[in-house]
C-alpha cells in the first residue's frame, strides 16, 4: 500500500525512477493506482482549499 502511495506521489510530482516505474506497470494492479490517485487528488484539492481558506481568514 505504501508503495502504491509513493508511486502515485511520484506521478503527481512527475518524476519516478525507471526501475520502480517498470515494476509498478508490470506488477501493480491498475485499480489500486487509480483509486489511490483519485483519493490523493481529493486530498490535494482539500489541502489547497484549506490553505486558501486559512489565508483568506
Amino acid at each position: 500500500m505504501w508503495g502504491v502511495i509513493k508511486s502515485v506521489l511520484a506521478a503527481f510530482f512527475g518524476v519516478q525512477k525507471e526501475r520502480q516505474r517498470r515494476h509498478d506497470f508490470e506488477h501493480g494492479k491498475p485499480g489500486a493506482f487509480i483509486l489511490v490517485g483519485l483519493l490523493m487528488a481529493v486530498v490535494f484539492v482539500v489541502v489547497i482549499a484549506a490553505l486558501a481558506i486559512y489565508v483568506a481568514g
Partner: protein
Amino acid sequence: MRKMLALMTGGGTLFGGASLAHANGWNMPVGVTDLSAEIYTLHMTIFWICVVIGIVVFGVMFYSLFKFRRSKGAKSAHFHENTTVEVIWTAVPLLILVGMAVPATATLQKMYDASDAELDVMITGQQWRWRYEYLGEDVAFNSNMSTPRAQITGEEERGEHYLLEVDEPLVLPINRKVRFLLTADDVIHSWWVPDFAVKQDTIPGFINENWVRINEPGIYRGQCAELCGMDHGFMPIVVHAMEEDEFDQWLVERKEAAEAEAMGVDREWEMDELMERGEQVYGSICASCHQADGGGSPPAFPGLAGNQELIDDVDWHIDVVLNGVSGTAMPAFRSNLNPVELAAVVTYSRNAWGNDTGDAVQPAEIVELLE
C-alpha cells in the same frame, strides 16, 4: 529579496521607458494608488522571472540547434531520463511559484479589504453608460460618452481623448478611502480604470465591492472591459480626482443643483423648455439605440419617428419609458432619470422628427405615476 524586487522594477521602468509609463505607454501604468503600484511591481517581477527563464531555456535550445546540427557532423547521443535533472527542473519552478504566490496573496488580501470606507459610490452599468450614485448624499447622475458621432465616422478630426471622454465624469476625493458598490441593470459590464488597478465586473442582480484611495489629483480614464453588446466600445469611464476640500465643495454644489431640479417638478413647464431638455436627455440616453433621427435599428431597436403605437397612446409611451419592456433591451428608466428628465424626454420623442403630437407631458404627471 526586497532589493531584487526594486532592481527588477527599476528595470521595468527602463523597459517601458520612463516617459512612456503612463497613457502613451507600452506597459502597465504604475498608477496613482498604493495598490496599483504594488500590482505593477508584481507584474514586473513575474515579467523578469519569465525573461530570465526564457533566456536560459531558449539559450540552451538555440545553442543545441546551432551546435548539434547534422550538417556540422553532429552524431546523436543516446542518453535519456535522469532522475536528478528531472527533480531539479520540477522543484525549482515550484519554489519560484511559491515565491511569487506569497506577495500576490498579500496584495490580494489588501484588495479585498473594502472596510472602513469614508465614501460609498454605487456604480451601475447600463447599456451603454455608467450611473454613479453617492450613497447617502442624494447625488446621482449618468455618465455618457461625449465623443461626437462625426469623429467616429471620420467626418471630423479626432480629439486627444477620442472615445475616452464623457459628459459627466465621476468625481472623487484624493486621500480618502472610497468604496465602490458595483452592479448592473441589464448585462454584465466591467468598470475599469487602469490607473487605480480597479477592474470589477458589474453583475445584474448582485453587487461587487471594490475600493480605491487615490494619491494624486488628476483625470483618469478607462473603459468598459466586458463585452456588453453593440456599444461596448463606447462606454468610457472618466474619473476626476480632486483635492479633498475641492471635492466637498463640488458635492455641496451638486446637492443644491439636485434640489433645484426637484423644485422644478411642481411647476408647469413650457413646451420649448421640455423640448430643449428632452433633446439633451434623448441624445445622451436614447440615441445610442433608437438613433438621433428616431429611426432606430429594427428589429432589436424599433424606430420612434412615425411609430404609430407611440403617437396614438401617450400612456403606453410613458409606461414603456418608466418601466421598460421585459425580455427586450429596453430598460426601466423610472429610477435612473428624475421626473423632469422623464417628462422632457417623452415630450421630445412625441414631437420631434415629424411626430408632432403636440403633447406636453408635465413632470408633475410623472411624479404621480411614480408614486
